[in-house]
């Protein structure tokens, strides 16, 4: 879902840059909680590793039937682990590194961060929160609730991000909205399955190996 340079019209590029910058500045002040506890010194190397893991997963394209491939975006996954605001910063810096290799454009970094960090990460996280609260009425274990909700949140957020991306690329008038949106959503209905499975597996693994690395339990209300 990495938009290349030259695909979006200038107004869309500027608007999405502004929205992304505003969210990142707001997020910087909102994520102070991440650094409040004494353990935060130990958390930072793990944040680095998590960013590297997401970079590696975005590099790995898994095959989708029909001559297409998909890769993990990881926005919802990072948001569940570190919180929605930190996830936007992490996704943004991953996109910056990828753009150095030509994977995604530099002028459209704002748009890519909007799609994968704000829709995929922040919105995805609040979908997870919604489902966790619904599952709180069941007798499921905490880690199962969060794992299932992560899968659902990751899936929905990827399809939504694809829908928004379809609208963005149609705004330049080259590809019509009637073509771009259904095609983007169709392919991401399949790609989203991979996103959901990988995100859920990683969250479940963290719950088993290092549960205190999930820093958002209080926000999720689990």
């Amino acid at each position, binding site marked *: *879902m*990495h938009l*290349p*340079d*030259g*695909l979006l019209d200038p107004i869309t590029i500027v608007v999405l840059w502004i929205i992304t910058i505003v969210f990142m500045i707001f997020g910087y002040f909102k994520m*102070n909680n991440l*650094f409040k506890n004494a353990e*935060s010194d*130990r958390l*930072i*190397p*793990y*944040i*680095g*590793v*998590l*960013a*590297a*893991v997401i*970079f*590696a997963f975005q*590099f*790995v*394209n*898994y*095959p*989708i039937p*029909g*001559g*297409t*491939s*998909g*890769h993990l975006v990881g926005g919802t996954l990072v948001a569940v682990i570190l919180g929605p605001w930190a996830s936007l*910063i*992490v996704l943004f*810096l*991953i996109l*910056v*590194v*990828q*753009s*150095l*290799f*030509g994977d995604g*454009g*530099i*002028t459209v970094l704002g748009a890519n961060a909007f799609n994968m960090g704000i829709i995929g990460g922040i919105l995805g996280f609040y979908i997870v929160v919604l489902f966790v609260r619904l599952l709180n009425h069941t007798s499921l274990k905490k880690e199962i609730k969060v794992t299932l909700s992560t899968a659902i949140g990751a899936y929905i957020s990827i399809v939504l991000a*694809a829908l928004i991306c*379809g609208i963005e*690329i149609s705004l330049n008038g*080259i*590809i019509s909205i009637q*073509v*771009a949106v259904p*095609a*983007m959503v169709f*392919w*991401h209905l399949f*790609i989203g399955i991979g996103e959901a499975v990988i995100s859920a597996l990683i969250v479940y693994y963290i719950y088993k190996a290092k549960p205190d690395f999930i820093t958002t339990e209080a926000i999720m209300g689990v």
Partner: protein
Amino acid sequence: MNRFIEKYKKTLLYTSIIIVLLIVVLAIGFPLGFLSGDPDGLERTIIDSQGETWLETLEAFWYPILSWIENEYIAGIIGLLLTLAIAIGLFNLMKYLRNKRITRTHGS
């Protein structure tokens, strides 16, 4: 230095294990062809609508400075290490700025 290693022994150990695992996955994934070379969802949508050559003629305002690395395996490892370094540096900087702000607030 020894004190630093002692303090972060576990963290450093886990970090090294995960990085080595990722490098191994990338190293095995490319030669085995497990990783798909097909276009992703966005590229597929553009190619189906405009054709592959149109996608290649899109004009960029800049030249990606690391795109000369053609070997995907090497690019993956460099990108991985770069991401790790930038993320740790950036979050340490944010923590430092936060602490500085708090100190200044308490001082005044």
